[in-house]
């Protein structure tokens, strides 16, 4: 019984939240890694691209809520998501037209594109705050829990409860679907293969008649979709605040690099590695340990290795360790 209680407590506070957070990071890191693989620069504007897509989704959600369109127990935001993706796609394509294409034509070094993307980041960041405000926005509705802690306790008779939020369930299901579709697209469609070819060897791809502008266009569309989905899921799960998305850039980059920049599989693995380490290291283990240890050994402190304030530091320690021992990341991406 004690052992079961420990497992449940662990799932409730560590496994379930980390799985949801990991999925969100993985979706974000996939966008970063695709841009890196195909456009060959680290896109610092990715966090704010997520914020922009999410903002459109939120505005649509509010409108739908006001006219009474909804999905019943599911959040209305899921209905608004396609509009968010479309808005975000329009935004990134416009940015590409106006900004990146100019630099691409000059064949500038990647580092210049990185700086350019920082400029884009600040513009997008300002735009989002200007439109929706810098504060916290709530837009989640529908059923809050798939199963509440109380229900779980009643059902199982255990002392510990396991609560699974609807948003956590939706995050996981959506992430699995999106990743599945993306991988099918990359491996089984001609466009996907062109993208992989372009990422693998740009010169050869060009001389094989692959139209680079088309590859770039499709890449941005996919990235816009990934960013909006990731941003909306994160916003549903936690809350939407433009500055939080700007900060999310750090663990997202850490995930992409840990997995190996340019490797989609790596981005997913990296997302979960980062999420699990952040959550486990900043979690107060007392609750779990109390169940597992004999009474005399029970800890009196919280057994929290680090305060949650330092969670971004965790991702960077992992990042440094991986780069020291495996510079190309877990899945052998391109060297950074």
């Amino acid at each position, binding site marked *: 019984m004690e052992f079961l209680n420990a497992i449940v407590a662990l799932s409730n506070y560590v496994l379930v939240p980390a799985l949801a957070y990991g999925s969100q990071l993985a979706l974000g890191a996939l966008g970063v890694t695709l841009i890196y693989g195909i456009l060959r620069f680290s896109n610092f504007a990715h966090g704010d691209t997520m914020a922009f897509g999410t903002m459109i989704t939120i505005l649509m959600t509010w409108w739908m809520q006001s006219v009474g369109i909804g999905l019943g127990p599911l959040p209305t935001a899921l209905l608004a998501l396609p509009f968010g993706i479309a808005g975000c796609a329009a935004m990134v394509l416009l940015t590409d037209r106006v900004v990146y294409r100019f630099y691409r034509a000059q064949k500038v070094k990647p580092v210049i594109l990185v700086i350019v993307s920082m400029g884009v980041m600040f513009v997008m960041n300002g735009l989002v705050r200007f439109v929706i405000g810098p504060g916290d926005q709530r837009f989640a509705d529908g059923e809050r829990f798939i199963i509440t802690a109380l229900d779980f306790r009643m059902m199982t008779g255990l002392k510990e409860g396991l609560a699974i939020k609807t948003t956590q369930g939706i995050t996981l299901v959506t992430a699995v679907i999106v990743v599945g579709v993306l991988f099918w697209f990359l491996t089984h469609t001609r*466009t996907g293969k062109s993208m992989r070819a372009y990422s693998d*060897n740009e010169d050869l791809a060009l*001389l094989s008649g692959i*139209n680079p502008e088309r590859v770039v266009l499709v890449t941005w569309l996919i990235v816009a979709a990934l960013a909006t989905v990731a941003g909306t899921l994160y916003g549903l799960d936690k809350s939407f605040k433009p500055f939080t998305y700007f900060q999310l850039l750090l663990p997202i980059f850490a995930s992409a690099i840990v997995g190996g920049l340019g490797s989609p599989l790596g981005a997913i693995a990296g997302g979960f590695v980062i999420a699990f380490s952040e959550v486990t290291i900043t979690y107060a283990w007392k609750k779990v340990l109390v169940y597992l240890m004999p009474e005399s050994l029970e800890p009196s402190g919280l057994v929290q290795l680090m305060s949650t304030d330092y969670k971004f530091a965790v991702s960077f320690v992992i990042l440094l360790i991986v780069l020291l021992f495996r510079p190309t990341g877990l899945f052998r991406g391109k060297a950074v």
Partner: protein
Amino acid sequence: MIKVDDLHKHFGGFRAVDGASLEIAEGTITGLIGPNGAGKTTLFNVIAGVLPPTSGRVTMAGEDITGLPPHVLFGKGLLRTFQIAHEFTSMTVRENLMMVPGDQAGERIWNTWFGRRRIAEQERALQAKADEVLEFLTIDHLRDEKAGNLSGGQKKLLELGRTMMVDARIVFLDEVGAGVNRTLLNMLGDAIVQLNRERGYTFVVIEHDMDFIERLCDPVICMAEGKVLAEGTLAEIKANEQVIEAYLGTGLKNKGMVEA
């Protein structure tokens, strides 16, 4: 077929191609020789649209193609291979070949979802064609091998195979023979001649192996220091004093090992 007019390509102060003018006649296998650093590969790069020229003009069948991007030139039937073989490492040999033809049905996002049957038909046709090419090059047993695992010579064959996937008009081969053993080299030569005769490909071949040039090429163009030095049959080129000076070398003559 291809006319290059006073072409310049400078990298800062370095003049890699320095006023080269030449003409490639349709249906020929033209050899391009010259010492290292003569500007042969740079010339290829400029013609194929990889590098923009500093000045000058390139025309193909009378049409100005100067500075067009590679994928557009590819659409016009102008192909090139690389001095150091390039391949899509993570794809199989067959997939590498199937990448080549442009404007496939599966490239349209719409078709990806709603045109499955058309894509499947086209893929089947491409697959058959790729298999045919692999058989022609006698590397059909490597069909499902990852291209990154091939040997250097096999990669060269794959490069040539790539040009056979579409109806090319003119193919620029950059040192197909480098690092390839004798037997394989002869095979490459046979393949080139056969493509030239049966499918009417025009070839321009950069090569250092004189036997290879002798077997295949007529005429031969010799470049040095970014300029065209001489043009003619290999025999004429070999007898040209300037060419001997710049490329073939006077070393043997000076040592008295051959009669002057």
